[in-house]
């Protein structure tokens, strides 16, 4: 998965952005994450606008220190000082951006399954509702959990797969790994698609 992501990312990176990798002063976040932090859903690039600053900073720190794996992001994050990482996190947390249209519409069955996992959970699989940690309608709980509503469905599915396969391990208390390992492919597609179909809180 991570290689696929990286290849996809590199494929869509403008030439200027790739060149800028060498220039530590201005990592080209915008090239992929958009001028307003809107992300690039089809390329698995997450939306960052309005995401909690401490979540973003933790991810940058984890990329820099190798606790989260993504060749592109590892490379950029390493070039930043801790202070710069905090600044970038704060900048994206303060942004707001329009929500992008979803790349693929979900059928009603998947939407219903996604809605159930998001708001109710699944007792037979021992999966608690996503909302329990990620806030009402997946709008996020600052300091605790990132928002999911309006996030790129492709990115969310990739993140769940990474937790499932253990290629992403920077979740506190293994909380996401515990949940993701109990989901099957249809669940991952349903719940990612469901959150992707939502618009987030107005200030995101």
């Amino acid at each position, binding site marked *: 998965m991570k290689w696929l992501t990286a290849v996809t990312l590199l494929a869509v990176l403008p030439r200027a952005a790739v060149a800028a990798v060498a220039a530590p002063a201005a990592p080209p976040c915008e090239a992929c994450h958009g001028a307003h932090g809107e992300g690039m859903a089809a390329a698995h690039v997450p939306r960052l606008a309005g995401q909690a600053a401490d979540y973003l900073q933790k991810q940058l720190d984890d990329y820099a220190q190798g606790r989260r794996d993504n060749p592109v992001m590892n490379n950029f994050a390493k070039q930043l000082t801790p202070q710069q990482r905090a600044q970038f996190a704060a900048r994206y947390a303060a942004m707001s951006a329009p929500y992008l249209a979803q790349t693929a519409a979900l059928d009603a069955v998947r939407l219903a399954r996604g809605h159930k996992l998001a708001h*109710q*959970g*699944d*007792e037979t699989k*021992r*999966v*608690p*509702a996503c*909302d*329990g*940690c990620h806030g*009402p309608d997946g709008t996020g709980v600052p300091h605790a959990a990132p928002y999911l509503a309006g996030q790129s469905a492709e990115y969310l599915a990739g993140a769940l797969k990474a937790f499932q396969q253990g290629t992403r391990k920077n979740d*506190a*208390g*293994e*909380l996401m*790994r*515990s*949940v993701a390992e*109990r989901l099957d492919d249809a669940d991952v597609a349903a719940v990612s698609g469901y959150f992707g179909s939502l618009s987030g809180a107005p200030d995101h």
Partner: protein
Amino acid sequence: MPALAQRLKEVDVVIVGVGMVGSIVAKELAAAGYQVVGLERGQARFTVPEFQSPAIHDELRFSVRKALMQDSALETQTFRNQASQVALPIRRLESFLPGTGLGGSMVHWNGQTWRFTRSDFRLATHVRERYGKSFLDPELTIQDWGVTYEDLEPHYDRFEYLLGTSGKAGNIQGRILAGGDPHEAPRSREYPTPPQKELFQGAIFRKAASSLGYHPFTQPSSNLSQPYTNPEGMKLNACVFCGFCERHACEHYAKSTPQTVILPVLLANPRFELRTGCQVQRINLDSTRQHATGVSYVDAAGREFEQPASLVITSAFALNNVRMLLLSGIGTPYDPATGKGVVGRNYSYQTTSNVASFFDADTHINPFMASGSSGTVINDFAADNFDHGGLGFIGGAYVGAVNSNGRPIQYHPVPPGTPAWGKSWKQAVVKHYNHTVMTSIHGSSVSQRQNFLDLDPTYRDAWGQPLLRMTFDFPANDLRMSAYITNKAVDIGKAMGATQVAGNPRNGPYTSTQYQSTHNTGGAVMGDDPNTSVVNRYLQSWDVSNVFVIGASAYPQNASWNPTGTLGALTYWAVDALKNKYLKSPGRLVPA
């Protein structure tokens, strides 16, 4: 009640109350090939959907209005301090909170998972040996349990591994280990998962307690520190410190409850049948009064049924176990005037108190960030871990920074002298909410002649049955214990660097209108002598050998620690006796 109850097909085992005890017994006996029916008075409920947030974090509904507890409009207890008073019904549960519904009271517990120590199980003998025959107040009725710590150790171990309890051993097979409790009785192996994270208040407490020469450690917790798969194959998650543990249920599969550790396995067994909404009225006896034929119950639609069974297990909340025996006429009711009789005798409780340590505005405690069981504690004053010579009491308490929540409606510590309402109170709450450490003193409770349970002569439940009557006040022994140990906790508060330290030792009389503890114990106690116990060392009724009474109702007196760990150990101990002794050859396991 209709004259004709519908008589159902006989089963091997009927279980009254499907909480943790009922779930374990049912699971083991159904797996051993027996047909088991579990009767639960409350509703079926599971982590999904019933316990999901945000609804489960509704403090008004669950903490204040107590949605998970026994419905006192249907059944409650009556209460009085002394036999000379008229008992009145507890119409609003406050001082203790028996749960109802599938999973029982462990759904709303805090996960504090302790073992009692060696001397607890032979308390009367131990006190006589160490302090002499005349040390005890004459009204005390403490006695030995009929089992030893060594008998129960493998069963404590099994229960802790079922729950996945997080902790650090202080004594493995006699080797004292750094980081654990050096006072604990030896355990056969390490806890299944490492200890919970320490809170800031715990770190302050640890430093102060160490400076005074005590031995602080992180309390064992069945809100887990990391994911865990138990021997039943059930997977649990790590606790997220949400601060809505006791009185609430866990939405995260992180608190060990019947729902998270065993019920799915039990419910998958076709030899087990769960019936909810079933209010058991009595255990039926044959004409000899020495053999049970089953139970009678009323379902949620008001229909009466008779469920015949070869074996009856009552595994309700401790108080309700005692009431079931009294309603069924099993065993001789206790008479405090003569000291004769056993059912209802030796009701005991828990003697709790606290110390509030108020800090300056720069010390941020963040009390809302809490697990049900992530305190830092000492056992230097628990049980007989210190010399009681000259102190005039027996028993003890664990002391620690054990604060499980900072919920907005009910948590607002203020210094003594603060007005109880109005502007000054509000200002004090704002000033102290985030800058206070509550130290808890969790103390033992001795049994004494005047404290007992019986059936109320006046008040009845929604089904027309007499309520249980509680006659209880704090024994003088326990008030002396509370005063002594609360003072020690005040010293720790001062050593923590608080600007003001307020000790609140337990004072009598006992009141049912202030929350203290849900650790109601005794009333159907175990022992070696049928004249002073209701059940034998295997929790089998002395009078009716095909009735087992499993619960904290079996404790002859209560120890310094939360009772659930010991209850789990006793459950597996009884299950072992059922499977390997009783069911192979039904009859009395101990000659009377």
